[in-house]
């Protein structure tokens, strides 16, 4: 990796349409089913703010929608708010892309930050696999795999 950078990329293939996948990524009622009750409080417009809201109303992460191009690509500025050691790192960039691939949708999640050994990047990278597994299962079978965050 280039010096002064932290990043990860996760890819999953989901047998669905770009529209259904995009709706799953941006609709609160859908999102809370696979994201352990979490929703995004935002009007999903480039330049607008977003907040990640837990069922008890607490906000852990927030940022700005930098690009919003349905049903293909969104870019979010991403900052953690609760844990001081993560909050002090400032903003990361999260890019979410959907590309049709061989009869399925290729969903790519990329998180990056201009900082070596970012704790924020490490923290968010741990959360995505289970969220993506749930999202894939929900879209393909109508049910999630994991109902609680701890496994």
């Amino acid at each position, binding site marked *: 990796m280039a010096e002064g950078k932290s990043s990860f990329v996760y*890819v*999953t293939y989901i047998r669905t349409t770009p529209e259904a996948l995009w709706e799953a990524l941006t609709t609160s009622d859908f999102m809370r089913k696979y994201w352990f009750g979490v929703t995004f409080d935002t009007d999903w417009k480039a330049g607008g703010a977003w907040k990640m809201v837990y069922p008890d109303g607490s906000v852990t992460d927030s940022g700005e929608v930098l690009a919003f191009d349905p049903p293909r690509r969104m870019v979010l500025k991403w900052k953690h708010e609760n844990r001081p050691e993560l909050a002090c790192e400032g903003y990361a960039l999260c890019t979410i892309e959907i590309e049709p691939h061989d009869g399925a949708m290729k969903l790519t999640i990329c998180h990056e930050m201009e900082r070596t050994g970012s704790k924020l990047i490490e923290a968010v990278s741990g959360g995505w696999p289970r969220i993506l597994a749930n999202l894939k299962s929900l879209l393909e079978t109508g049910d999630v795999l994991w109902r609680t965050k701890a496994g």
Partner: protein
Amino acid sequence: MVAYYLAMDDVFRALADASRRQLLDRLFAEPGQTLGALCQGLEMSRQAVSKHLAILEEANLVATLKRGREKLHYMNPVPIHEIADRWIGKYQRAPLDALAELKRTLEGEDHG
């Protein structure tokens, strides 16, 4: 389901090779490496590494990003997670499903 099982075959086949597992370990330790960086300190030829990476990418165990002229490689844990879900997840789901069933039963009775 056929495609699903074929995809899983690719994952197991890709993992059934010590050199490829070594490449995954190196990408896990340091995400976003170029082919050149990955080859450093390895006894494999650049060509062999490139071939292994193609197999890993085909199995979706490696994801790549293009940054200018560089191609950056990342270990993608999602397929391994799907394998865990497939065989291990169901053991952990059972108690949760039982609780959900209990809740449905109790709430069903409450509301007549």
